[in-house]
């Protein structure tokens, strides 16, 4: 009896936490379907804010900029991050620790500090615009990419790489054939994390974007300052869902779909099925 009560309290507590965490988002979602512009009165269900959003050229343009920025920066961050991991792994233990520690600092740094320092740095060399935004995004994505690739890198038997050289492979061939397939799941995770970070970022983008360019978060901010714009609720709802889906994918990463190393992709489906069976 007491046990039952206890378990009920436990569940209730968890439910309260989730309610408090997510109720603002739920309010946002509900308002995005509200036929009234008011923030407190329910005027009936409508999709007009969504259709208005898709018809607004500024929103569509900003959307394209944001997605391009996210994909491009994540792709570059993944390439740089992979190279960094190869380099870090080859270091002696002490240097390795120092460099890994240094890459983690931006993770802990307040976004506003990163944003302002990047702005000051760029103002010396570059005009703020898409390129500065891109560099800034790559900068804050890199630690996440390294963090997701490094554990995979550690698992690789260094002798596997040596064995490839021993069998006549050049270092580059050995990397693509032996190292890359092993760290590929980490690269995918890193890529998705980087995408999420990029789509999500307001503070750093705000300081580095320059006057002509906007990302969705900075646009939403400036639009909402001008007045009530329910299409921004609609947009925010979609962004929330996009990021949520990406995070769910990252967390389901144990699934064979994503952890399948890429060298096997070229093999026929039948052979692959067999491969997967042995893998477990």
């Amino acid at each position, binding site marked *: 009896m007491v046990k039952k009560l206890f378990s009920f309290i436990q569940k209730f507590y968890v439910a309260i936490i989730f309610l408090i965490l997510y109720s603002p988002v739920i309010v946002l979602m509900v308002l995005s379907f509200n036929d009234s512009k008011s923030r407190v009165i329910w005027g009936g269900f409508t999709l007009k804010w969504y259709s208005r959003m898709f018809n607004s050229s500024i929103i569509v343009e900003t959307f394209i900029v944001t997605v391009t920025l996210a994909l491009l920066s994540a792709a570059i961050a993944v390439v740089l991050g992979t190279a960094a991991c190869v380099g870090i792994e080859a270091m002696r233990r002490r240097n390795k620790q120092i460099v890994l520690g240094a890459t983690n600092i931006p993770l802990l740094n307040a976004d506003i500090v990163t944003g302002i320092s990047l702005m000051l740095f760029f103002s010396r060399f570059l005009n703020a615009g898409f390129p500065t935004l891109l560099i800034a995004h790559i900068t804050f994505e890199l630690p996440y990419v390294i963090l997701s690739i490094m554990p995979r890198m550690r698992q690789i038997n260094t002798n596997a790489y040596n064995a*490839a050289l021993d069998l006549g*492979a050049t270092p580059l061939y050995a990397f693509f054939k032996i190292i890359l397939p092993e760290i590929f799941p980490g690269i995918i995770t890193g890529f998705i994390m980087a995408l999420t970070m990029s789509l999500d970022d307001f503070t750093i983008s705000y300081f580095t974007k320059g006057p002509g360019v906007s990302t969705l978060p900075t646009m939403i901010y400036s639009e909402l300052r001008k007045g009530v714009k329910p299409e921004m609720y609609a947009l925010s709802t979609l962004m929330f869902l996009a990021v949520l889906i990406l995070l769910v994918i990252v967390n389901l990463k144990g699934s064979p779909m994503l952890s399948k190393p890429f060298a096997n992709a070229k093999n026929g489906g039948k052979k692959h099925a067999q491969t997967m069976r042995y893998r477990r």
Partner: protein
Amino acid sequence: MEKDIIIDLKDISVSFDGEPVLNNINLYIRDNEFITLLGPSGCGKTTTLRIIGGFLKPDTGRVIFEGKDITDLPPNKRQLNTVFQNYALFPHLTIAENIAFGLKIKKKSKEYIKDKIKYALKLVNLEGFENRMPQSLSGGQQQRIAIARAIVNEPKVLLLDEPLGALDLKMRQSMQYELIRLKNELGITFVYITHDQEEALTMSDTIVVMNKGNIQQIGTPEDIYNEPKNAFVADFIGESNIIDGIMLEDKLVEILGAKFPCVDTGFGRNKPVDVVIRPEDVDLVEPEKGTIKGVVTSLLFKGVHYEMDVLANGYEWLVHSTDMVPVGREVGIFVDPYNIQIMHKPISEDEEASSDEE
């Protein structure tokens, strides 16, 4: 230089972070030889192998392969293959793809590769394993695949780093025979690493005993066992009685206050020496007939022989014998002069360090 020397290591020294790991190693390896690097863990065996394989450049010294200096040649350009400690199979490739790895790089035809895979799997007794993944194999099977993957490339020399180290005793013994058979079938040079002296004695043509980055002795298994050059080798190769002695004159040594006739000469007069006597060479006789008297303090039955401790003149002698003597019995100790091995004491502290076990 002898014509049949395939690898020649000249004055090789290596240190890591200022710690010397190999001290001036000189070693030649004959064509078609089964040579074993033997020594305790951390003595520099793997480092030596990595230098031969090209994975590590020595600080000083040269590596000569068939008369050519290959010190600066990267591993992928060397005509030798390595079987690494812990197998190092490629986990995401099938067994067939693992074995084909080197052949694909050499751009061999599909037919050739297929034949070779079949041949290699047959050689290591794992026919039909083509489409398995490495993780689905036992340790012994993985080890044999690692060997197959190396030998399909027809190397002139195969380097093996403790290939049986991770296997259980039974598996080890059967793999020892497999390896000897393979070596004879292939007719290539094997450079083998182990820290197991029995394994070294069973398998090798030549044994190189190493300790703390120094070569202690090079010789046939018989040489190493019967005539260890110093106390370290004697101790490492099987159990031994190593006793302080004084060489009184040629062919006469004093141990524990008694005079033992021996066959060694040229040590000078009244020189302190190390005396090595194998436990199976100690004869227990009637108290009056022995060179010294002692008392049996322990007795163990070991299957083939009895192992006894005999306390005589303050030293506990290790004795192996097929005859049992009960604990407490007084016995005489006699050693045939041919079975007494006299060795110089290490001269300097340095040499002491290099011949002491950790």
